[in-house]
């Protein structure tokens, strides 16, 4: 990478700043995979400077007011895809129910990044380590994809297809994230292990659960940076559902999660370390969520 110049954007491209979703869709229909949608740019510009991607058309969606909102209505929390992270943080700080999302949002970069980056951008980059993904996954979130041909809504776990790969067609744009309303009794938490305070995770984990006394009524687990995509953990959680929770049961769950994941060695950590700490992280996050859940006396 020594030949790239990350101080300047060397590549030339045509730049659009549409004011409506309709205009974006028109541009996408016209340019398809030659175009890239840019929101906060905190991931995209780095990739462009490093010449990983060189779009010939860049469509900035930050001027589109209809893409930036947070609304709680009809059983859903709806967040516009171009909503900035600092707004998500502020919302979650007031509405205390989405604790895992709040913790994930707070851990995303530092103030400067959160003032630029958007929730849709974090998902559309489709990094296995995307901080928001595990939190949104445990809440059974779904995303609205829009094209000139219409809209479709898919579950978030079906959105991620691989490293930097999504289910979005070249003429589609993510317009909205939808999170089902949360029962008051739900407890959730998010944690990540990083190299330094402000960093992408070595590994991350979110848990959302409901309790009936000492019984775990429901439990969702999701992890980041343990596979090519942020993933829901589908087996380990079953160990605790419907059971009286104690340390030995959680230990069983820890063992199971190490089997479910498929981490790699990269610049941030090793596969071995990720496998070992996945269990520890799950334990920590699970108990945090457990104590937060309403069943606690």
């Amino acid at each position, binding site marked *: *990478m*020594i*030949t*790239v*110049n*990350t*101080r*300047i*954007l*060397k590549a030339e491209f045509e730049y659009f700043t549409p004011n409506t979703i309709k205009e974006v869709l028109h541009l996408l229909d016209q340019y398809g995979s030659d175009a890239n949608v840019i929101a906060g740019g905190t991931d995209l510009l*780095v990739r462009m400077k*490093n010449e990983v991607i060189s779009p010939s058309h860049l469509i900035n969606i930050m001027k589109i007011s209809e893409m930036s909102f947070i609304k709680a209505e009809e059983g859903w929390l709806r967040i516009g895809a171009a909503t900035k992270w600092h707004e998500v943080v502020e919302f979650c700080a007031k509405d205390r129910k989405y604790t895992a999302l709040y913790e994930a949002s707070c851990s995303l970069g*530092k103030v400067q990044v959160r003032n630029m980056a958007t929730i849709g951008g974090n998902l559309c980059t489709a990094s296995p380590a995307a901080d928001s993904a595990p939190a949104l996954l445990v809440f059974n979130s779904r995303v609205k994809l829009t094209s000139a041909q219409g809209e479709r809504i898919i579950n978030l776990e079906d959105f991620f297809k691989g490293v930097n790969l999504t289910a979005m067609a070249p003429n589609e744009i993510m317009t909205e994230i939808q999170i089902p309303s949360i029962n008051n009794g739900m407890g959730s938490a998010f944690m990540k*292990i990083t*190299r*330094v*305070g*402000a*960093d*992408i995770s070595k590994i991350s984990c979110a848990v959302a659960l409901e309790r009936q006394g000492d019984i775990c009524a429901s439990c969702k687990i999701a992890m980041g940076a343990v596979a090519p995509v942020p993933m829901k953990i589908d087996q380990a959680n079953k160990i605790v559902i419907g059971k009286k929770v104690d340390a030995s049961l959680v230990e069983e769950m820890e063992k199971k999660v190490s089997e479910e994941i498929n981490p790699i060695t990269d*610049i*941030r*950590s*090793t596969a*071995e*370390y990720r496998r*070992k*700490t996945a269990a*520890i*992280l799950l334990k920590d996050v699970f108990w945090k969520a457990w104590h937060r859940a309403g069943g606690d006396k």
Partner: protein
Amino acid sequence: MKKRTFSTVGQVTRRKDGISKVTGREVYSSDVSLPNMLYARVLRSPYPHAKIVSIDLTEAEKMGAICITPADVPKIRYNERQVSIPEKTYRDRTVLPEKTRHVGEGIAAVAARTEALAEKMLQKITVKYERLKAVFDPFEAMKPGASQLYKDVILGDVVLPITRNIACNREVSEGDIEKGFKEADLVIENEFRTGRAYHHQMETKAVVCRPEPDGGITIWSTMQSIHNARQLLGRIFNISLSKINVHRVPIGGTFGSSIQMNSPVAICVALALKARTPVKLVLTREEDMYDHCKYPSIIKLKHGIKRDGTITAGEMKVFVDIGAHNIQAYPLLGCMAGWFVSLYRMPHMRFEGTSVYTNKAPACAMQGFGNPQVSFAVESQIDIIAEELGIDPIEMRLKNYVGLGETFWGQGPTVRSVIRSCGVEEMLIKGKELIGWDKRVKPEEKTGRFRLGIGVGRSFHTSGTGAPVPGEVMDYSTAMVKFNEDGSVDCLTALMCHGGGTLEAIAKIVAEEIGVPLTKVEISPADTRSTGYDVCTHATRGVYCGGASAQRAANEAKRKLLKFASRILEVNPEVLKIRPDEESDQGIIFLEGAKGKSITVGEVARIAQIKGWGTAISVESHRQVNCPPCFVTNLIEVEVDTETGQIKPVRAVAAVDAGTVINPDLAAGQLEGGLCRGIGLALLEDTEYNPETGELTCGANLTDYKIYTSADMPLVDDIHTFFASTYEPSGPMGAKGVGEAAINCTAGTVANAIYNAIGVRFKEAPITPEKVLAKLGEKTKKH
């Protein structure tokens, strides 16, 4: 010596350059913009080791590029660092090389109207390489038959053949090492390693060069010594030194990365001379990271000790992987020997150092210059010994440290002086109380997932490189002080401030020496044509050496001023004094006890001018004949998560014996900064190379080269800094240095704290969570 009381020195004052810095008005090298200026970019080698067969510029020149290749630059071999005497300077590089020795080495450059255009032109250049086998491991590099980076280099003026890629060796011994080990009850041997950290200074290396109509050049650049750049450029480009002007420009941090005249400077000059118009070259972060790193170390350490804790012998063998160029490996090895000898008394000692070329980014001085590496090894070893003997680690240190009245090796075997101020004991005793040392328990008594551990470490750095006998390293400064007609004072020196407030300290020393308010002293802009020689602001010498020359110039200028005053007041100049005066807001000259016999500084300067007596001005060059140790002590508490291997520093005590402290708040800031980078060296920072490609695995960017920030440090209330109450008789106002000392003992202290927490001794830094978990796993298996 009795401590003096001061009116300005030691006070917390507002920094003179504070407003321009916080408002973004300060002009750094990368901000310099000149009419008709072109922007340069450098074509860099993608290969770690390759002969350059040909460079085709046709397409780039068609686009209007001004290009330089190895064929266009002077063939002279130079060393970018000009601090050692010529006979001890190893010269192995040219402005552009005919053979590339590391990925990222510049091999051609272009200048164009914009940076983006220059970047495009670069891509039109075709280079034919003949790839050579690369070596990345120093031990592999020393094997017979290994690929050779150099056939020969120049030492002084002599051609020196290079064999087995060994850049240089150094052996030092005193006493009879075998006898020393025989006298010992116990011999302890260990190997320690530290990483190739990157300087990570805020501002990347930058330079602007303007060719002058008279054949000269003017330079603005990130550098710690403007005079060395002038001398080097004069030699390389055969320009008279009186036609080269290098400006001092505020710099966005260095950590040692600009002690030498960095590679972009000569490239930019060559381009500007060819283009006949100003050229600017600012490195990207990626380029900067391929330009330099800290000297890594492999240290084999052997101590002989008696049962009572007396050290009878010490032997240190050091291997340093210096990368593709020898910038200052020879003085480094000498210093490492000096650091080793001056930490603890050893009647018999031996040092053997080997520096080895590899196909990696060249290593250069970085805060501590081999001392954090040596102290990591020695301070770990002292704890190992103390435990073996059942002696308290602090007692062990108090028993053996080199202190008052003893010979100090300073910057190596040729730089020796006697220690005349020492706060080692004071800092250890006070630090012990502050951290709660007596409550510290052994690791085996600790249980649970999160374990706390307290470690101690101590070290020092030299204040400059002066010595009674001039050695292998040059060391002197020059300063000019003059009085203005309104009572203000100008101080001109080529000294550099790297951000730590060195020039602020100079202003305070001058104000104190003369007796005027600090607000009346300003540090003038400096360039090489208007200042006397100053070796470099390195080696923690700014205040101690640079300050001493400013103090002398101030004293002499004051003497002249008082002579003028004595003519006006009609008294003997010897009895006149100057003190800051609130009413006139300047210095007032007075005769003690005699009312009416007083006059302001400004009035004297004004009358002297009107009457044609002259200006009260003085220029002094001064070499310090000592380089007193500024001792440093850390006590750090860490919390180790035994399940994830994560280590968190939770409390820290950092103390320095800097003699009189000139800028207390800035000195405390230095201690905190040293703590932060030192913890990084212990736990986090290193650059690794892909052995297939020779590229940095972190991609040479800050996304994946991490340093700790305030977010990773103990809370402000849990960091305690303090200063030993000492006075250095040879220092300006009793001052010694601080800068590099701040980091020197931190990594060793952290390793000791980790041991106290979990009972595992780590001898290789950085101690990452991955390594901690692996070691803890081994430990459980054994039990």
